[in-house]
């Protein structure tokens, strides 16, 4: 008897470093950031790209932290292109000048996704915890000049949802072909800062209406992606298209995860590219097998007709909120733990479900101490 064949992954998220000039309170990096001296070498990343391509990966996000903080980013891009993998650099724009961008494009970089925190310079820099807006504006213009595709990524929360019209207009003015409006996912840093970040239902409804109006107006000329706020929809997200199904994440220190939030599932022993090949990790590691398919599902997922659509929701959110990664995602109204979410979002809760309070909750900025 051989184990059933595991379908190969399509995409790789390469967290090249956790170093970053920004301090966003909703950062998707783990709360325990990887320090510089634990980062993989250039050679390691080149091998990761070769192994990823051989395994079936066709597309990668070169992300961080800020990937430009890696002095060898050009070499990593070249190794990625050499392996035949389509690459997108996910950047804050800080540290990008014309010469460096030229070298990256020459090395084979296919496209760029730029983050922005707000359409207003001062509000942007306050959320980022650094004076970075001007650098972003410059970076956008430089990328447009090269002719490769520019996308914008905006994490949405209480402090910028009301500026959605201006943010979309900014993305259009900067020449973006795609604007990803991603409601914050309350894990890691964002969970730590949830009280300050969680919007009101009214804010969300207004923003969603605005996105609908822009979509009509743009008629597909600029793609708008609205990443649903699962705290408010009552329906869990099909996180990562299923655990170990479509993509994998390699952390700065070589840890391999089914999703960038999976660090919180501390009871799983996540493999590392220093000790095993990506193929072995993808096909045979217990961590990747843990929540694949639906055999692991408890009720109510086990008998739910939606289980093939949402895969039980997010394992990391289940773990963070209930202590058990195998439970139904509490974002689902059918989850026995849904009250954990509802208590935060019900209009009458007195919590952040209401209009923003005058004095915001304190924020823990994301800082990597070396």
């Amino acid at each position: 008897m051989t184990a059933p064949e595991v379908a190969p992954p399509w995409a790789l998220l390469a967290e090249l470093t956790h170093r970053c000039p920004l301090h966003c309170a909703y950062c998707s990096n783990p709360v325990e950031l990887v320090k510089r001296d634990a980062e993989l070498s250039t050679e390691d990343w080149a091998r990761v790209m070769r192994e990823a391509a051989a395994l079936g990966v066709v597309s990668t996000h070169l992300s961080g932290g800020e990937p430009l903080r890696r002095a060898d980013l050009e070499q990593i891009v070249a190794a990625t292109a050499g392996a035949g993998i389509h690459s997108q650099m996910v950047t804050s724009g800080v540290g990008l000048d014309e010469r460096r961008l030229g070298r990256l494009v020459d090395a084979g970089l296919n496209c760029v996704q730029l983050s922005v925190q707000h359409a207003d310079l001062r509000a942007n820099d306050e959320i980022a915890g650094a004076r970075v807006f001007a650098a972003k504006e410059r970076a956008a213009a430089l990328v447009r000049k090269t002719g490769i595709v520019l996308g914008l990524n905006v994490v949405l929360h209480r402090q910028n949802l009301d500026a959605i019209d201006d943010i979309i207009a900014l993305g259009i003015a900067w020449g973006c072909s795609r604007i990803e409006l991603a409601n914050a996912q309350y894990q890691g840093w964002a969970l730590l800062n949830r009280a300050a970040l969680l919007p009101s239902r009214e804010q969300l409804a207004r923003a969603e209406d605005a996105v609908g109006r822009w979509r009509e107006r743009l008629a597909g000329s600029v793609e708008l992606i609205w990443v649903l706020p699962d705290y408010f929809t009552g329906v869990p997200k099909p996180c990562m298209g299923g655990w170990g199904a479509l993509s994998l994440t390699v952390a700065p220190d070589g840890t391999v995860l089914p999703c960038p939030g999976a660090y919180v599932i501390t009871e799983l022993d996540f493999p590392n590219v220093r000790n095993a090949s990506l193929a072995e990790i993808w096909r045979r590691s217990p961590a990747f097998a843990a929540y694949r398919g639906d055999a692991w599902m408890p009720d109510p997922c086990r008998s739910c007709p939606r289980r093939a659509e949402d895969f039980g929701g997010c394992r990391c959110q289940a773990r963070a909120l209930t202590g058990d990664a195998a439970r139904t995602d509490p974002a689902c109204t059918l989850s026995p733990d849904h009250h954990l979410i509802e208590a935060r979002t019900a209009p009458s809760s007195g919590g952040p479900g209401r209009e923003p309070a005058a004095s915001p909750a304190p924020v823990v900025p994301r800082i990597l101490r070396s």
Partner: protein
Amino acid sequence: MSGAAEWRPALAASVVLRHDAVRDVDLLVLPERAVVLTPSAAAVLRLCDGETGAAAIVDRLSRDFPDAPVATDVPVFLDRVRQEGWLR
């Protein structure tokens, strides 16, 4: 319709046409997605080099695939792919 005849289709910026040896399919890889192509779609797109006009692509495919409805289907296909933003 001389304008349409002048069009020399090319893959749009940041779009890559490639064979996927792992899955044994042809793919169009673009930012944030990959599209699995049918063999005939890949055969058409491989000719979109930015130098060959749409009419010449149809001629060439008509010769290579004399039994296929190239003259009717290929212009419609090219137009649809351009509307998706994958050709320019």
